């Protein structure tokens, strides 16, 4: 098992004829993701790496059959329209790759997705991969690299930093520890599936034995993970690294969501709450594989 995506998931690419869309379609197809169709309005009839392109999702659905997931590569300003089209067509999971999607656009997508019982990863995400099964987005960059860097196994990885998602997973693989699913939740303040929501999915996945998270200062995601552990809604061991400890030196992160919560959002708040709840908070990325191995041995 894995979460959100496997080799059976039927995937559509929105913005398939663009620079990123084309390059990552190749990655996904080469890796084994079942990419059944692509959409770029006005470019219907073309093919991208053997994937038929349609003018609309409705048309793609009609010709190619039901679609489970849409991966969106359109420019940030067009994301809202693309996502609403996907939701309207009945797609239940979206991966919104672009960076710089206006926050109110995301809030609208959240509202509609909720009504439709759908969810999404991102925006501003590298995507996710269930090693050995399927990849969505651009994680790994190229199929041969993704195969080399990520292997199937018991560790669920969720991260707020794209590069660190790959880095942590690669170092796990190097240490002989495979991953169930690796997910970059996205770097924005409002994301579809945030860390706590992904942790709950890992909790329900029998293949995942241990969860690794890369958190960052800002937002309440890590605090909410701590809450899940405290409430017993996450019983699997959690190993966490929180970035941004030294960020005071001028890298300012936004805390708009933390205005009432006072100190919520700071490094200390996140690290302390996770520790008190029973998670292992490590001080460096290099420690993660050792800690994971140690814990896996004891369970």
């Amino acid at each position: 098992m894995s979460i959100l995506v496997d080799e059976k998931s039927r995937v559509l690419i929105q913005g398939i004829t663009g620079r990123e869309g084309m390059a990552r379609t190749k990655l996904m197809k080469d890796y084994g993701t079942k990419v059944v169709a692509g959409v770029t309005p006005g470019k219907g009839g073309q093919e991208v790496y053997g994937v038929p392109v349609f003018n609309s999702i409705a048309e793609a659905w009609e010709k190619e059959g039901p679609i489970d997931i849409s991966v969106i590569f359109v420019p940030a300003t067009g994301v809202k329209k693309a996502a609403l089209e996907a939701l309207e067509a009945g797609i239940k999971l979206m991966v919104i790759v672009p960076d710089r999607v206006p926050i109110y656009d995301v809030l609208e997508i959240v509202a509609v997705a909720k009504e439709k019982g759908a969810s999404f990863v991102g925006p501003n995400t590298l995507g996710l991969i269930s090693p050995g099964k399927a990849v969505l987005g651009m994680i790994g960059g190229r199929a041969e690299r993704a195969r080399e860097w990520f292997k199937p196994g018991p560790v669920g990885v969720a991260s707020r930093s794209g590069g660190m998602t790959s880095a942590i997973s690669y170092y796990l693989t190097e240490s002989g520890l495979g991953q169930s699913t690796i997910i970059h939740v996205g770097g924005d303040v409002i994301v579809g599936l945030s860390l706590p929501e992904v942790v709950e999915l890992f909790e329900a996945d029998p293949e995942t034995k241990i969860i690794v998270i890369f958190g960052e200062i800002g937002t309440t995601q890590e605090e909410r993970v701590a809450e899940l552990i405290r409430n017993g809604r996450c019983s699997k061991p959690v190993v966490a690294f929180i970035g941004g400890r030294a960020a005071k030196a001028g890298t300012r992160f936004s805390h708009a969501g933390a205005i009432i919560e006072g100190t919520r959002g700071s490094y200390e708040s996140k690290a302390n709450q996770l520790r008190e709840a029973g998670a292992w908070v490590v001080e460096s990325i290099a420690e993660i594989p050792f800690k994971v191995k140690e814990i896996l041995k004891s369970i």
Partner: protein
Amino acid sequence: MARLFEYQSKELLKQAGIRIPWGGIASSPEEAAEIAKKLGQPIVLKIQVWVTGRASLGGIRFATTPEEASQLASELLGLKIKNFVVDKILVEEKLEISRELFAGLVIDDALKKPVLIFSSVGGRGVEEIASHYPEKIIRHEIDVRKGLEAAEALAIAHQAGFSDSIQKEIAEFLIKLVEIARKYEARSLEVNPLVITTANELVAADAHMVIDDYAVFRHPELGIEVAREFDRPPTELEKIAYKVEEKDYRGTFYFFQMIEDIPKEEIVVGFHGAGGGGSMMSMDALLRQGFRPANYCDTSGNPPASKVYRAAKIILSQPGLIGYFASGSGVASQEQYHSARGLVKAFLEEKLEIPAVIRLGGNFEELAIEILQTYLKEIPAKVEGYGRAQSPDFCALRLKQLIEEKPGVRHKVRPMEEPLIPADAYIFSTMTGSIWIDDRQCETCSDRPCLEACSSKILGLVEGKIRLVISPEEAQKGKCTECLACEIACRFHGHGGLGIILPIPGLKEYRQKIIETEKQINNQSYR
């Protein structure tokens, strides 16, 4: 996040029909006196800076006469508060306050909704209100598609203990507040205090608004130059960098300066990260070696080589650097040879003298490192490339060792050179620049390495000449990915008949200014 000043935020409230204090903005003591005279009543002067607790810093003062206003304004203008130099003062009527309330709107990351916060206690920080009077704080979730409805607004005002006409007035105010936040796509909007005057009027006495960076482009009317959160106005170099980012949606380029004037005794390096998490980790490694980064920079999300090139040129517009450090997560999904080529072009043009350590771990790191090693032999600087096997700490230590090998070398900013293009060259536009080809050079070149190097295969032979084989429009729309491979191949394996020009508006003038300043400093030190 793009912050607005108090006076700008209030202007938006006023346009929406919310009552704000009478007054105006002053940049000189005379203007302050003028406004005070017009108001003809006791006034308050408020410095316009993005700093909380202005009153305790002496930034809020009261006056009764225009003379007094002028006097206080001359004291306040030019004052340095944290990273801010005061250049504007808001001069307003002093309100007769009967009661202070709080109203604000934030975007809650857990609820994934805007949340309206209202309290019948105001004036102080919302955290303080929350800890002293938690029961007074009303939080109300907003449906982003509907806004705040009249019945909801009335209920909030009622719950806060208001009735009759003031209840209605508060409700109307709250509806407008939510509308303004939505209209201008505010990440947060706070009116604190919201004042009930002795004449029973509802007045927004203070206002702070932060606009979503990503939505700033939809609001040119706000005149925001750099949509990034700073605790000070953006520097000139940051404005130049921001323009680059604004004009090119491919990948991310984030740049800000950590120190503007580099003290000569500091060991300051230019920092070029990739990815938020990886950059942070790499900066920590620099700090551990005792370095100070002159700037923070992040080019990631699969940026084209042209963007990385521009980032490097901007980083190298800072004088006095003793090293260049580039490092990201170490396991990047993006093709790292793009970054390598961007750096090569920049370092060659700069004839870089200071050592550089470039950690380009990730996809095609071997090729990326090879590019750095092959094409940077002619510059005075030592440049070392590393991949995912080497940690940021190892790389930062290498930089330190390279600096120690040749101590005392500091980066000198050079003028931006105008490229020499033959008048009859064949030229076509790329997304952010242009490529020129000099047929005479190509005629004598039998290998034509540019053709093989061109990754998107848009160059070909047309009647024996190197030409675009797609339409110029397609090239400009992005079919030419500005990978820079053709230029490097031509320069090193061909006859130098091809080049790519990637303008950076404003950088030439900026560098000229820096060079002048450096000259003056040097002249002074000789005297």
